[in-house]
């Protein structure tokens, strides 16, 4: 379950140096890796020592303001057991759960958007996408990352190196007019086409050596190399 690459994120993770969605993917890994969880705990304590070394006196009025505030704030109940159902291990801190939940919600909302757009089209087609999405998400190294598309919209890439595939989900893209949105595998060499967006999504088979996925607006039929500015790049984990 533990790949050296994923494991190496423990340091960046406790320093909050991992971007939001990549963090969600790492937390999935954490929930299955006892050694990582132990290491994260120790490194977090270590980071705390770094933090304490920066201690400074706040202005005195902060105290009275905080104390006045808390008398008006209702406390949350203990963590509900819902999310741990079926899992023998205890989950991470509430913080972790909320980020995982946020990533799941994001993906779910995109998927829902995709499904809604297609209600009058082929339902089986939509189901197929939902199936391939969940297949990738179940891979131990599944990663979710996103980026804002220039000109509007969001691109979410769910990828797995192990499965050597990715799913690109775009949301709220502007109308490409007579053209088409084309995805590219970006890496050290020349950009390679990852295919044309069919509606708001694209299955990408074979990640090759790509380090990120890019999106451009190309003339109808697509291009062999990008002819327009890259509107968004989403890094692969």
């Amino acid at each position, binding site marked *: 379950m533990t790949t050296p690459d994923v494991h190496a994120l423990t340091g960046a993770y406790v320093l*909050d*140096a991992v971007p939001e969605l990549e963090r969600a993917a790492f937390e999935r890994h954490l929930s299955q890796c006892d050694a990582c969880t132990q290491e994260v705990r120790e*490194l977090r304590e270590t980071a705390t020592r770094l933090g*304490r070394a*920066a201690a400074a006196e706040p202005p005195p009025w*902060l*105290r009275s303001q905080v*104390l006045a505030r*808390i008398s008006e704030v209702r406390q949350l109940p203990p963590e509900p057991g819902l999310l741990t159902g079926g899992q023998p291990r205890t989950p991470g801190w509430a913080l972790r759960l909320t980020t995982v939940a946020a990533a799941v919600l994001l993906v779910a909302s995109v998927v829902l958007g995709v499904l809604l757009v297609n209600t009058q089209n082929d339902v089986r087609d939509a189901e197929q996408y939902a199936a391939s999405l969940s297949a990738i998400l179940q891979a131990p190294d599944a990663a979710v990352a996103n980026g804002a598309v220039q000109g509007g919209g969001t691109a979410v890439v769910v990828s797995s190196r192990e499965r050597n595939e990715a799913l690109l989900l775009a949301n709220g893209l502007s109308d490409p007019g007579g053209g088409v949105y084309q995805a590219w595998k970006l890496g050290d060499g020349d950009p390679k086409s990852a295919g044309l967006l069919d509606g708001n999504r694209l299955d990408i088979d074979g990640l090759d050596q790509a380090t990120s996925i890019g999106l451009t607006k190309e003339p109808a039929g697509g291009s062999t190399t990008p002819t327009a500015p890259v509107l968004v790049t989403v890094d692969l984990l």
Partner: protein
Amino acid sequence: MRERVRRVPHTATAGAEPDADTLLQAVARGDEQAFEKLYDLVIGPAFGLIRRVVRDPAQSEEVAQEVMVELWRTAARYSPDRGSAMTWVMTLAHRRAVDRVRSAQSAADRETRVSAGESSRPFDEVAEIVTMKLEHEQVRRCLGTLTDLQRESITLAYYGGRTYREVGELLDTPLGTIKTRLRDGLIRLRDCLGVAR
């Protein structure tokens, strides 16, 4: 300000000042007096860290206030088997500080600041008002045992609130190397500081 009745949380051992873990568990049961004590115990480290990351004094005060209210609100979600109460607080503080700097600046703005080298404020201004001198000395000594790349990566990520990608760009070093240095640097720090295994 409200009238406060001073009393020791009922979980505290008579005569001894309760530690952060004990206090946080009392806070989870809605004990406001325990919260006041906990505040006094953690605010210095939490505010200092937030100040180091956020830098702007007014924004740092805002974030510190958010963190303390969040601490009150989520106290019942703390569980001692996942780490110390101080670490819980500091994790919350760092996360919020980082959220603030990442959302406050557009990517372009951030790049400008990176290239400008953030030279507007002397690095050790905050360090001068350090209250826990002893601890500070030990941390400084242990940071000194790291390689330059380990130390710079950790400092940029933790005190600078940078993502590891930004750290990679700033230090002109491949991402894989940065990830590894962040990890093995922290491991070396852990061993030097004698953090309980």
